[in-house]
């Protein structure tokens, strides 16, 4: 009876996993061999098929992590500390997933394959946690970098306004725009404060609770981005008013 249930579960997993491939790999569940209930040993062909699906899952996650690693290595916004932390996390995930894949490929029972294959999701959460976390840290550090650039630019814009020979009306409008710009940069600075620290060390074992942190971070980064885009528009307005 247990063997029959295991066989049914195996077929279900195979179909589910096949659907998860989203058409990129054709899996004909009906064509897969069914484990014989009369034997306690795993059907080698079916076991191999499941292992193959697990391997595909690992390879896809490794591809996502490799792309993330490129973002991290080439980012001009990440602080060196955050860059180092993220590279360490990515490297650990890559090594861990590769080792897990080797373990799966050497498993000899269905139960062990099921358990180990499940770890691809639960021990790493690459799609739903690691990947968005990395993107959020890059974005958050980017906001801080833009804040810093604006903070350098604001006194320079003030000097340009002061030295400009435009009409008093235009100068007053430019000053108003600069004040507005300054307020937006300050708001952005407030929004982004603590965002990186709130997500960079999230771990898969905290899922799904830590999803709230990721969503909160996204909200704060979006708010900061909106403020900075508005500040950017103010710069345009100022330079236009001053005839630059």
């Amino acid at each position: 009876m247990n063997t029959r249930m295991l066989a049914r579960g195996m077929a279900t997993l195979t179909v589910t996993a096949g659907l998860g491939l989203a058409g990129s790999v054709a899996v004909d569940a009906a064509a897969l061999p069914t484990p014989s209930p009369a034997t306690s040993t795993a059907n080698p062909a079916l076991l191999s098929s499941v292992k193959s699906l697990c391997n595909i899952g690992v390879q896809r996650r490794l591809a996502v992590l490799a792309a993330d690693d490129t973002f991290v290595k080439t980012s001009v916004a990440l602080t060196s500390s955050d860059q180092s932390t993220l590279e360490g996390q990515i490297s650990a995930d890559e090594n861990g997933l590769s080792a897990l894949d080797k373990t799966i490929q050497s498993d000899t029972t269905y139960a062990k394959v099921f358990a180990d294959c499940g770890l691809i999701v639960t021990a790493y959460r690459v799609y739903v946690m690691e990947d968005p976390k990395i993107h959020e840290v890059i974005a958050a550090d980017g906001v801080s970098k833009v804040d810093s650039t604006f903070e350098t630019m604001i006194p320079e814009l003030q000097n340009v306004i002061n030295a400009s020979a435009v009409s008093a009306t235009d100068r007053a409008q430019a000053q108003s725009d600069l004040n507005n710009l300054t307020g937006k940069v300050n708001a952005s600075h407030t929004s982004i404060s603590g965002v990186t620290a709130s997500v960079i060390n999230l771990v898969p074992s905290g899922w799904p609770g830590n999803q709230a942190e990721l969503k909160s971070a996204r909200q704060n980064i979006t708010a900061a981005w909106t403020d900075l885009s508005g500040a950017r528009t103010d710069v345009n307005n100022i330079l236009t008013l001053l005839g630059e």
Partner: protein
Amino acid sequence: MTHLTALRNSVLCGFAVVAVAGCGAAHLTSAATPPVTAPTGASAVAAAPTPAATPDTSGINQQVSSIDNQLGTIDGQLNAANTGLNTSEGNPAQ
């Protein structure tokens, strides 16, 4: 006598003014600023206020370009994060 002393002091004072102005002109010549003409004669003439210089916004334009690039990057990273946050991950093979 008093008159002669006053005259002498006035002349000496004029030399001093010329010397100070001359030193200033020599110093400024080495910089990129317009040369300052030392006043001639015994009395120094107050420099006329220079017209406001045209503001140099090249630095600001470079900063704006950097900000534009960064805002584009942040937007892209936010979109990428959104994809993950709107995904479910329950299937090992996905």
